[in-house]
């Protein structure tokens, strides 16, 4: 084998380090055998094993060897490069070596964790080490580029997580764009009357934060708006936001609500989205009194003017500020930001998917979110728990885990339902004096003050029946059951099938990803986990980062979460975003593509293919030109170029072929 000619100083001198990773690797791979094998490979000067290569002593080992053996190439056979490639590149850097004279062989995720047979695992590890050695010989010194970052942050989603992240950044002096799809910020928390376990008033802790957002000089708030396009890269994102017309000029409306009084509809008669259809609104409305911004909007689906073109439009006259604008069009805003925080939240499980629970069929079967509105002092019943026919329920059943921990729907625990069920049980009992039955699989109350709250409910005399309810029907077999909803359930504590007649059923629906989570993740170029929630970079050590630099996660879009956890994560995401933009620049990986001008035929094939618009055409030279600041190193142009003119640092043909040959030659 020939070394590349760039090394007149005697050629490559390679050190190979095989990590045990405790027993993660050594439990399956015969590490010693891999080391002995590595010693036989060309240009390998030293090969060693160590319990934890990533630890300080492990790194020190490499540093000493670089000095002692004059190493100019290093291989570490351990975990995924996602985890520790940066760690080991730093070791080379600190030893005065170019950090790209390094290659990692992943013998944990690709070998020991997925291979049953120790023999086969050891052989595969050896072949990957051979491949890495062959490849690293052909590595070239590369330089990281520094690119300035934009000083602004985009926060997508105006629930409690987005609000908290936006305020944290704005208070730190950074400009924030907060984009919310609905006409108001507040998210799900705005629906709630009380929060567990302290039973403090949700509005009292949320609405001050909402108005702080509206008033903050560093926050640009765009509600009723959606992000439609995202381009660029960490530090330099270009984002397009579509602002839907609300037919009311936000700058002029002061929220006096006189237009609503003046509407030709004297009574509110259309289902009110914010009250989940339990209340009514007019075509011109404000979602709820504390909505932020305090600006009305017109729903063209129900407004007579939009539907027929004939209406006295009494609202126009009523508005002294002349804020109503029936001609308003949607607006497109273009912004540039350095970092993005996604806080797009969740949706609740659709209870209709479990027809045996009769939601939508029996009017007295409610979802928990609907009951949140019923117990809310600002809700459609003013906080009284009344059934649709006006009766006050005497017996209420709360079914836990609806759509959660269920192989048919979602296997995961939604984390918040046990606690919100306890809260609703308490509130219903307090307001109605009803007997309340909780049907649970396991009570899950880990959290500060949570178990104590459960104890309190037990003391209050709320009933707890351990068993998953099989069905809810109006099938009465005794006079006492007439006119009631009957829950059939196996009480697993006493091993008996019971029939519990109630007046009202509350379905504790679980939390699911937003229906458009997959489109959103494509737009922001991030991943989703199996369940469809946005995937964090590392579940423990990078819980708010994503695999796309500069894009962070907060709240339930990453997985089911309660308010304290959402807020904590929002703070973390804000801090990460701040750390990124405050530094003023980002270093970009040098694994970008470049054009060998002598080979380029000027066919322009690559230009249309580049997903990042990084390639332009130099008409004078008639060749393609790649903007390295925009190139993400995806390799699309390299693969497509018919003349082999498009190449990529760290993925040169010779490097890839040597790597393949390394595997094949060994096998």
């Amino acid at each position, binding site marked *: 084998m020939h070394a590349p000619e760039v090394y007149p100083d005697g050629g490559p001198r390679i050190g190979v380090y095989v990590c045990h990773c405790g027993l993660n690797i050594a439990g399956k791979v015969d590490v010693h055998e891999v080391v002995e094998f590595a010693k036989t490979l060309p240009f390998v000067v030293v090969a060693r094993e160590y319990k934890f290569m990533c630890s300080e002593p492990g790194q020190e080992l490499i540093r000493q060897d670089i000095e002692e053996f004059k190493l100019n190439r290093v291989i570490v056979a351990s975990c995924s490069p996602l985890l520790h490639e940066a760690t080991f590149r730093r070791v080379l850097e600190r030893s005065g070596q170019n950090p790209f004279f390094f290659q990692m062989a992943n013998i944990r995720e690709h070998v020991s964790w997925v291979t049953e047979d120790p023999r086969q695992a050891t052989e595969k590890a050896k072949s990957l080490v051979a491949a890495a050695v062959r490849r690293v010989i052909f590595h070239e010194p590369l330089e990281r580029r520094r690119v300035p970052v934009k000083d602004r942050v985009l926060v997508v989603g105006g629930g409690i997580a987005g609000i908290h992240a936006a305020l944290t950044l704005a208070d730190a002096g950074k400009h924030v764009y907060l984009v919310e799809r609905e006409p108001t910020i507040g998210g799900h928390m705005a629906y709630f009357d009380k929060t567990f376990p302290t039973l403090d008033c949700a509005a009292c802790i949320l609405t001050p934060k909402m108005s702080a957002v509206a008033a903050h000089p560093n926050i640009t708030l765009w509600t009723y708006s959606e992000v439609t396009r995202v381009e660029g890269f960490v530090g330099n994102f270009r984002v397009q936001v579509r602002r839907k017309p609300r037919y009311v000029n936000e700058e002029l409306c002061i929220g006096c609500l006189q237009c609503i009084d003046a509407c030709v509809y004297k009574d509110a008669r259309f289902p009110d989205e914010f009250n989940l259809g339990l209340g009514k609104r007019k075509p011109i409305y404000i979602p709820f009194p504390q909505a932020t911004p305090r600006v009305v909007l017109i729903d063209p689906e129900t407004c007579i003017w939009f539907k027929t073109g004939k209406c006295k439009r009494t609202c126009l006259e009523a508005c002294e500020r002349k804020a109503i604008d029936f001609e308003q069009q949607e607006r497109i805003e273009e912004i540039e930001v350095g970092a993005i925080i996604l806080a797009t939240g969740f949706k609740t499980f659709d209870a209709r998917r479990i*027809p*045996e629970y009769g939601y939508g069929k029996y009017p007295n079967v409610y979802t928990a979110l609907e009951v949140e509105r019923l117990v809310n002092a600002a809700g459609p019943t003013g906080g009284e728990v009344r059934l649709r026919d006006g009766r006050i329920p005497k017996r209420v059943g709360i079914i836990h885990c609806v759509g959660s921990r269920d192989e048919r729907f979602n296997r995961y625990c939604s984390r918040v339902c046990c606690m919100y069920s306890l809260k609703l049980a308490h509130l219903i009992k307090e307001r109605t004096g009803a007997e309340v039955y909780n049907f649970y699989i396991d009570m899950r109350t880990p959290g500060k003050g949570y178990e104590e709250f459960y104890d309190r409910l037990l003391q209050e005399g709320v009933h707890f029946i351990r068993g998953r309810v*099989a*069905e809810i*029907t*109006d*099938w009465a*077999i005794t006079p006492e059951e007439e006119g009631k909803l009957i829950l059939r359930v196996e009480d697993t504590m006493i091993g008996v099938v019971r029939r519990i007649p109630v007046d009202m059923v509350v379905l504790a629906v679980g939390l699911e990803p937003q229906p458009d989570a997959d489109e959103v993740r494509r737009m922001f170029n991030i991943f989703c986990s199996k369940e469809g929630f946005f995937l964090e970079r590392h579940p423990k050590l990078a819980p708010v980062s994503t695999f796309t630099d500069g894009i962070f996660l907060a709240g339930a879009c990453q997985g089911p979460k309660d308010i304290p956890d959402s807020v904590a994560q929002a703070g973390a995401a804000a801090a990460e975003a701040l750390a990124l933009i405050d530094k003023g620049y980002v270093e970009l990986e040098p694994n970008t593509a470049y054009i060998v001008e002598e080979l380029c035929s000027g066919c322009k094939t690559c230009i249309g293919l580049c997903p990042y618009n990084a390639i332009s055409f130099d008409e004078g030279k008639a060749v393609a030109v790649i903007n390295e600041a925009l190139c993400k190193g995806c390799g699309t142009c390299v693969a497509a170029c018919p003349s082999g003119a498009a190449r990529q640092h760290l993925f040169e043909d010779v490097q890839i072929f040597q790597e393949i040959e390394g595997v094949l030659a060994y096998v």
Partner: protein
Amino acid sequence: MTYLYFPGCSLKGTGRAYEESLLAVFRALGIPLVELADWNCCGATTYMSIDEHQSCALAARNLALAEQQSPTAGGTAQLIAPCSACYLVLLKAQRCLASAGPLSQGILHALQEAGYRYQGRVRIRHPLDVLVNDVGLKEIARHVRQPLRGLRVACYYGCQIVRPFASFDHPHYPTTMDELVRTLGAEPVDWPLKSHCCGGSLTGTIPEVGLRLNYLLLHEAQRRGADVVITVCPLCQFNLEAYQDQIRRRYPTLAPMPVLYFTQLMGMAMGLPARELGLQRLMVPMEKLAVASVRGESHARA
């Protein structure tokens, strides 16, 4: 499409009316049914609990025969099993054979010893599934001669055609038959017990349990204003119909309730002669429709 037909023991015995009406309806719709030649016992649900190996082997032989006699040579055979127990046992055996476990190996070996082989090219179908999903409600509506206006029907699915496999309807809240009944011009009643247990063989072994379950079903159907209960299974039909006298001895409020196979009701709506549908075998006669059905008979003769 030509379907293979696996009658099982019931449709040649207590469930003869099911076979008669099923064949009549398929004939009237112009869909060929070919009885599986040399079929044997399906393997039976209870047998499966006692000797899984032998029970599965019996079912597997039927599957091998179906594959061999497939009307589309080399293609997948569509095998209709009207009895819920046969339907379930055949499905269970098929699942077992598709797995690579020792049970499956043993049975494939046994088949081989007897000169059979089975490669998984059989689709086991319930006639309700075939009629609603293959033939389609539109086509059925085209054949309705005497819409069953004003008739209130409790559609009884029982447990076995929807659980555990639920291949064509919801496991706890099936609706296929309700839609079929609407197509026939009748009105399905909202009857939450439609996939509850009929007692199975408990009516014979522990009557106080079996009879009570049947009472609950019939009583609730009656309370909801049903004129007739229709079933998809010969055991359900037998339990619900034949024990009504005994049930009444324990629960005197129970009024007589006719219990028909869904194919009998279809045949009536399609104007087929009562005798072809086995209606004369009913123990609780279907008074409300007697007039219509007689008219249908004379119409057919003319």
